[in-house]
């Protein structure tokens, strides 16, 4: 432990030593400057946050987290690195260095001045109607009434903007994890790898105490953002459908029900609270028809919201530019090719994909592959070769490759023999491609058998590919 602490202090001091020069360089270069330099400073804050959390230095963790959020906004172009911004970040880093120097007492040290100014910077980057969301908490009232998750409206909106569906999944760690031979660590690793945990909570009151038998139930609720659409999510979460609830936008009016989670303002409602009508409830779909109907409702709502979406959230360049500004987060293949239909069920392929947490972690070979989707013609069919790691880090690239393949208009065969690793985002892409191909009456086949990593993933996810739209075997 002492070695871990010593290494943390040494690393942190070393990183912080360069910060001032780096930040001043960023300011000088201005917007569109050296993105690698912004990345470097971002990574410093990110790694301090992680280590401090591990070492129980909560104040250091919280301050570096705030700094990280501001640097993330600079990195994504939402915030300009002007002198005022850089000065605030510099002063926050100075305070961080003081905290590190006094790490033993750091949890008792005050950082409120810095967190307030950093939060104000973040608030300023948002459209006016979204500013309240940075501090407005929404409560998710669970059907059991046993526990409540608190989330910042801003976090929920951000998760949704990236083209995600929001689900509340009610796990029972005994029934859904232990009896299936899994451990909580495996569950959390799976969830973290396949999407974003917005919040979660254990209903610890339901577990009971040491008097009597140990509880046969451990309710665990996860509010989760994923690009997996409901049809696939059912297979992935591995719990009974009754325990998966799609959380629709808070502006969506739905009939209230006592059996579904409700999203709304927390506690005393303020006179001007815009969430008084917030009742984002949705009956859990029991069959596909219900599901499609629910989905259509979600889509039309999302489309309306999407019209106001920040254009910077859309994937830029290439294919998605054609979708036009009206429905950036929610257009589908049909809209793209000018054959827009009312159904809107083929939603996913054009929704911006969640950015990997560390965009810079993309392996160099992936970046190269992005340049040229390997398409070739084989008789009447087009063959698209997908290889390497088919994971969330490359999901946007693979999606574009599939889109280009489908846009040729001829039958498309997928050569996937060279896939070396895959996560659930790849299953979502294959499923979405199959649906889009069907909607366009184009044949989509697998030119090669699925390689072992993909087969293992399908087995692990419990996905029955006969039950969902899926590329046909050759």
């Amino acid at each position: 432990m002492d070695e871990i602490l010593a290494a943390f202090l040494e690393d942190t001091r070393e990183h912080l030593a360069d910060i001032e020069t780096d930040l001043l360089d960023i300011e000088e270069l201005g917007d569109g400057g050296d993105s690698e330099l912004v990345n470097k400073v971002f990574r410093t804050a990110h790694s301090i946050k992680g280590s401090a959390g591990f070492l129980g230095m909560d104040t250091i963790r919280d301050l570096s987290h705030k700094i990280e959020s501001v640097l993330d906004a600079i990195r994504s172009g939402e915030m300009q690195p002007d002198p005022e911004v850089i000065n605030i970040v510099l002063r926050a880093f100075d305070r961080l260095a003081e905290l590190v120097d006094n790490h033993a007492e750091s949890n008792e040290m005050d950082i409120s001045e810095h967190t307030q100014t950093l939060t104000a910077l973040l608030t300023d980057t948002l459209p006016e109607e979204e500013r309240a969301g940075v501090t407005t908490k929404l409560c998710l009232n669970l059907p059991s009434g046993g526990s409540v998750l608190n989330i910042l409206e801003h976090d929920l909106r951000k998760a949704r903007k990236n083209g995600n569906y929001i689900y509340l999944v009610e796990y029972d760690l005994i029934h859904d994890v232990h009896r299936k031979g899994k451990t909580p660590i495996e569950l959390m690793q799976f969830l973290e790898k396949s999407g974003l945990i917005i919040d979660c909570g254990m209903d610890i009151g339901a577990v009971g105490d040491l008097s009597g038998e140990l509880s046969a139930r451990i309710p665990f609720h996860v509010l989760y953002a994923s690009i997996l659409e409901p049809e696939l999510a059912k297979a992935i979460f591995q719990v009974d459908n009754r325990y998966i609830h799609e959380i629709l936008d808070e502006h969506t009016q739905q009939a209230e029900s006592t059996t579904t989670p409700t999203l709304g303002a927390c506690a005393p409602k303020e006179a001007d609270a815009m969430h008084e009508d917030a009742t984002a409830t949705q009956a859990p779909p029991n069959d596909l028809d219900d599901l499609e109907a629910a989905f259509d409702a979600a889509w039309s709502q999302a489309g309306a919201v999407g019209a106001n979406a920040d254009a910077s959230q859309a994937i830029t360049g290439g294919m998605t530019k054609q979708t036009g500004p009206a429905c950036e987060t929610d257009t589908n293949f049909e809209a793209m090719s000018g054959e827009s239909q009312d159904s809107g069920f083929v939603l996913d392929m054009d929704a911006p994909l969640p950015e990997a947490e560390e965009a810079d972690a993309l392996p160099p070979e992936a970046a190269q592959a992005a340049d040229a989707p390997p398409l070739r013609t084989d008789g009447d069919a087009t063959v698209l070769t997908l290889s390497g790691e088919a994971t969330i880090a490359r999901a946007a690239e693979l999606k574009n490759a599939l889109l280009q393949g489908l846009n040729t208009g001829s039958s498309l065969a997928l050569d996937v023999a060279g896939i070396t690793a895959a996560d659930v985002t790849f299953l979502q892409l294959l499923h979405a491609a199959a649906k889009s191909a069907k909607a366009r009456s184009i044949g989509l086949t697998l030119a090669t058998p699925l390689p072992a990593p993909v087969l293992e993933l399908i087995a692990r996810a419990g996905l029955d590919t006969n039950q969902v739209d899926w590329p046909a075997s050759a």
Partner: protein
Amino acid sequence: MTEIVTNGAAATIAPGKDIVASMVEELKAEVLAVLDEGVTELTLNLKGVVMVDSIGLGLLIAIHNSVGKHGGRLRITGASPDILKLMQTMRLDQHFEVKSA
């Protein structure tokens, strides 16, 4: 081999092995015995613990609930990086203190 050190109202229990279904009854009995002696400040030292399964997690929560009923407090120390991260991602650290040291 479980190490138990009691000092007035404070006690530290170090089970020294994975907290899983096969051992929870044993650990539960040891914790109950310590609480019966009037201990309110209970520390579970997880040194040497590599895995906590769902049943083990349930026991930790039940211990927290029992200690809380007596006006006491549960702290977890010596958690491995994996277990610490698990407790943090599951937000259990909002209910009781979890540390790696």
